[in-house]
């Protein structure tokens, strides 16, 4: 029998349906892989007993022909999703041993459809980071290495555990969240497919909040088809999230393999940066050529406010974070540090519980919202955000179906390499992805090639609101042309 962990979700679904193996066998294979890959630090909590219980229960259902679209498929869950009776920390010391008495809507839909939970995945603390180095459980290791080198590379962030685990065949797919690029950047760094859905497509209920007007949940998987399968279960209206959209969930998988003939693909000139590595430039032209060969039409477009997206993001996101994270006060859950009075108790708890990056962002957010600075910073950033969204609207109004860009300005870098005194250097990682969050659009990162050192590189496709299907069709064209990439196993 082939190694069960190397199957795609689509292949495993078939194997389970024709009784080639059981979900328990599939789950056990993944639990063994997780145990053998602890050096990657992708999981912060393994839940083998729960996984086996869930697998046995779903096997019984499959035997009766019941199942569900994800019946028996073992998944990893980013530790930002609340899971009932299973510790959820957002990888922050301040949540301590928080055990939610409720389940996030997105994960509850995965279990409704028959998926099996293997455990909780590492991420940047409160999803604030682009290298998975801010987690209180320590950095995640990218299964990819430069050819002929033992240097430990980051998997990107904040969904670094999700990307690393999917790339290293520790789970068949994973949940992730994306506020400025946290699904697409790690997907690009690990040769996985990452989807950031349209704002409102997936419920945010039960997901630890970072920046509520930007946060969206989405899947990381090894193929476009697998990502489409997961998306169908994750998406959908939820009365418990007032920003969740009441709109039918399409069969995303049906978009895989659909012709892209006649589609207009925008190539935005503002994404061509000075000093961009020639490899990224080459990958981008290659991707465009593949889409053209599949019958799409390439159109030069302009998104004039692109360069302002990242600075505007670093006002809006910290502002929302400072307000969302006010709840961590040592009273209702998580860590408490004593103080001589209640204010000191709050201050000591938050100084001890939050890591350096979170403290910095909460402070900058507090500053831009404070009296006298609110208009100059926050309101101005929200106006710029309106302009960024309008750039895309103008582009789509001209008949553009999707926009093709590089996913990241570089391949994965070394652990600690960008931990210098200037936080902005790390923030520049999200330069191509953050516009999508600011405009609330869907985006997908698809593996498209490797750099000279053998590290994976990804392309990003940006779609019209609620047109994830077009992204899956185009992503599949790239996948068929570029092939799939699996890291050689060294761990």
């Amino acid at each position, binding site marked *: 029998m082939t190694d069960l962990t190397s199957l795609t979700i689509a292949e495993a679904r078939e194997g389970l349906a024709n009784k080639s193996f059981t979900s328990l066998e599939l789950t056990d294979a993944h639990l063994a892989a997780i145990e053998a890959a602890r050096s990657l630090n992708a999981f912060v909590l393994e839940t083998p007993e729960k996984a086996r219980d869930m697998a046995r229960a779903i096997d019984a259902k499959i035997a009766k022909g019941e199942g569900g679209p994800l019946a028996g498929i073992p998944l990893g869950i980013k530790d930002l999703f609340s899971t009932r009776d299973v510790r959820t920390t957002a990888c922050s010391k301040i949540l301590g041993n928080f055990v939610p008495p409720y389940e996030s809507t997105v994960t509850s839909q995965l279990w409704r459809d028959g998926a099996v939970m293997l455990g909780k995945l590492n991420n940047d603390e409160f999803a604030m980071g682009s290298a998975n180095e801010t987690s209180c459980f320590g950095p995640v290791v990218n299964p990819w290495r430069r050819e002929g080198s033992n240097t430990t590379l980051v998997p990107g962030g904040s969904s670094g555990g999700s990307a690393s685990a999917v790339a290293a065949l520790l789970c068949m797919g994973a949940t992730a969240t994306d506020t400025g690029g946290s699904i697409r950047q790690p997907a690009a760094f690990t040769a996985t497919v990452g989807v950031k859905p349209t704002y409102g497509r997936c419920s945010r209920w039960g997901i630890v909040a970072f920046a509520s007007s930007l946060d969206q949940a989405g899947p990381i998987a090894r193929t476009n088809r697998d990502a489409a399968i997961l998306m169908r279960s994750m998406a959908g209206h939820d009365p418990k999230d*007032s920003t969740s959209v009441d709109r039918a969930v399409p069969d995303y998988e049906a978009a895989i393999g659909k012709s892209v003939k006649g589609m207009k693909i925008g190539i935005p000139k503002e994404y061509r940066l000075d000093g961009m590595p020639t490899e990224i430039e080459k990958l981008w032209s290659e991707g465009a050529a593949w889409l053209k060969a599949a019958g799409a039409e390439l159109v030069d477009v302009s998104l004039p406010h692109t360069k302002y997206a990242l600075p505007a993001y670093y006002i809006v996101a910290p502002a929302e974070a400072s307000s969302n994270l006010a709840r961590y006060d040592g009273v*209702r859950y998580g860590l408490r540090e004593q103080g001589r009075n209640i204010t000191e108790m709050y201050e000591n708890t938050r100084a001890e519980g939050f890591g350096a990056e979170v403290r910095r962002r909460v402070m*900058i957010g507090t500053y831009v919202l404070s009296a006298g600075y609110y208009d100059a910073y926050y309101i101005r950033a929200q106006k710029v955000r309106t302009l960024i*969204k309008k750039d895309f609207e103008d582009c789509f109004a001209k008949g553009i179906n999707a926009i093709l860009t590089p996913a990241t300005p570089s391949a994965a870098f070394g652990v600690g390499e960008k931990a210098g005194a200037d936080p902005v250097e790390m923030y520049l990682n999200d330069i191509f992805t953050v516009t999508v969050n600011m405009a609330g659009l869907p985006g997908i990162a698809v593996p498209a090639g490797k750099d000279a050192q053998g590290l994976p590189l990804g392309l990003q496709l940006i779609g019209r609101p609620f047109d994830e299907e077009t992204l899956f069709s185009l992503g599949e064209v790239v996948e068929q042309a570029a092939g799939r990439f699996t890291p050689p196993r060294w761990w």
Partner: protein
Amino acid sequence: MSVDATTVRRIAHLARIAVTEAEVPHLQGELNAMLAFVEQLSEVNVDGVEPMTSVTPMEMKKRPDVVNDGEIPDDIVRNAPETQNHFFLVPKVVE
């Protein structure tokens, strides 16, 4: 714009994060690096532009004003660091 040491201490207090004197210069440098980075927004012409309030055009949904949850005090206090019966305990606030 940039922040001085006094402002850093004031922001830290507003954010309810204890900051030691030794941390202030470092934090000041980091916050000023971020402020320098966002400074480029001042070159954008935003005359007559509405600030964004909702990224997807949608009407605020309302639900019936009825009790639809509750009677779960054990769940509510189960993760709290200090409780008594079904109350959260905090340091004394009123003398």
